[in-house]
């Protein structure tokens, strides 16, 4: 499907805006391995965009390109209508692009609360000197940040583990804390690498609900990678399908489901 440039209305009546991020002819090589081969697609304001594909298709690599962890060998990344130069991951984060990781990257030694607060570092203003000399202002700012964090904690229903060191949490809750930390940055785009992998059915349902609520309540644009086809079809507005580093499909869940290349790729590969 080619969405009109000014946006579109989803079947469930949500209004999707113009292009927020655009990948143009992205290629990524690691030595001889071509992880991404000449892929282009866009992500629209307010949209839930999924990237799917068999193992090793290059999905995580794509997310890493968007978040600046990988520099594409060829191609351009456009954000808010402007071409983005080669950037470090922390610079991308400061643009308002937050992410989670397939293998979870949390601060294990810190409490849940501290982990989520760390997500707000880019939004904290007070510098070293002002903190030392204008203690009052810094304390007030800290309070505001804590308030915002408490809202996210309530939102994701993790009040009862606020003070727990993250290292002690079970897998499913870690994934939720990671989402909370990304949300704390109040991002323009939220990138989620397999947010439901390794979860039981109940946890998956919770996570689905959170993702939909985030999108609905904060209007956050979301790009996510997911293996579970059912989940993808329920969640996403548009889907990019990758296989062996190439894009083999792009459109609404229905369009993608009926695409012969996609069907072949999925039938030809065993999944875990």
């Amino acid at each position, binding site marked *: 499907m080619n969405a009109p440039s000014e946006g579109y209305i989803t079947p469930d009546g949500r209004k999707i805006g113009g292009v927020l991020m655009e990948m143009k002819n992205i290629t990524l090589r690691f030595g001889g391995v071509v992880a991404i081969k000449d892929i282009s697609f866009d992500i629209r304001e307010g949209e839930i965009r999924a990237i799917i594909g068999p193992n090793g298709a290059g999905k995580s690599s794509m997310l890493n390109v968007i*978040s600046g*962890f990988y520099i594409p060998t060829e191609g351009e990344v456009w954000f808010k209508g402007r071409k983005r130069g080669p950037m*470090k*991951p*922390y*610079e991308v*984060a*400061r643009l308002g692009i*937050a*992410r989670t*990781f397939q293998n979870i*990257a*949390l*601060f*294990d*030694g*810190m409490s849940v609360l*501290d982990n989520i*607060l*760390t*997500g707000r*570092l*880019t939004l*904290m203003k*007070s*510098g*070293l000197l002002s*903190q030392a000399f204008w203690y009052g202002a810094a304390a007030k700012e*800290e309070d505001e940040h804590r308030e915002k964090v408490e809202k996210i904690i309530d939102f994701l229903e993790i009040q009862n583990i606020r003070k727990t060191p993250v290292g002690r949490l079970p897998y499913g809750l870690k994934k939720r804390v990671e989402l909370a*930390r*990304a949300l704390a*940055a109040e991002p323009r785009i939220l990138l989620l690498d397999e947010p439901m992998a390794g979860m039981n059915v109940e946890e998956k349902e919770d996570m689905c609900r959170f993702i939909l609520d985030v999108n609905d309540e904060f209007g956050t644009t979301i790009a996510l990678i997911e293996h579970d086809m059912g989940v993808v079809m329920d969640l996403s507005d548009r889907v990019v399908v990758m296989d062996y580093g190439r894009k083999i499909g792009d459109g609404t869940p229905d369009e993608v489901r009926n695409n012969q290349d996609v069907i072949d790729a999925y039938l030809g590969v065993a999944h875990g």
Partner: protein
Amino acid sequence: MMPDQLLYALEVTLNGLMAGVMYSLVALGFVLIFKASGIFNYAQGVLALFAALTLVGLQNGQIPFAHLINAALGTNLHHFGWKLPALVAIALTALVMVGLAILIEKLVLKHLVNQAPIILFMATIGLAYFLEGLGDVMWGADIKKLDVGLPQGISETVESVTDAWLGYGFFIDRLDIVATFVAILLVTALTLFSQYSKQGRALRAVADDHQAALSVGISLRFIWVLVWSIAGFVALVAGIMWGAKSGVQFSLSLIALKALPVLMLGGFTSIPGAIVGGLIIGVGEKLFEFFAGPMIGGATENWFAYVLALLFLVFRPQGLFGEKIIERV
């Protein structure tokens, strides 16, 4: 034991605690860098020497690189002819240490990102020799007296008070008392900084997980500079204390050798560990010398710390407070 001997042992313990504070200070510098970057900074001792040399040089208005300039141009420069107040000189030296941290990041660390720890360790060995040479060339290789106005000599107050209370006057060096207070102040400041400031929080994040830190917008390079600056400042404090005690000379850099057993005891990643470890080694050293020294011919202070640390390694490899190291397989 005779009460007199008990009191004497108590005095030895107190002196040991004070000496331990010095060890803790040096070990603290190591821990800061190791925690944030996984680098074992061999140059920490030389950093203290370099800081002390720079402080003395600035304070006395020495012209840096004077020997080099004289040799090249046939001039006869020595001093600018001014003396700086101690506090001004200390502040300037702190700035020099920040500059040094920036240079180390730009010229060394930046190029070694993602290298194995052993490579980074080797780089710090190189750095140690370089800084040692640089210190010599900039400020001269002679032994210097460091005087920033810290009180010296045996504290008469302590002596008379303990004499009045216990009938036995303790001999405690005034400088050691000051060093203790300074160390407490420094550790408190560092703790507040790391717990409550934005940069401190970023520092803890980097120490915990680099990838996660990047994803929340923390610049690792900024953190390297920050942590080396802090380590440089801690080295300056250690350099001032040791320098005031025994002069500024090459042997000052060897205090790092005392820090190693402290780290083995306290764990490489624990700030409380560095402090408690330093105190244990300081006290252990002095008490062992006091009780066992006379029986086995003295000079035990040279090796006792290492034996104690080795015993610890056998029974608790991660140190007192260090995190347990579990290999993933």
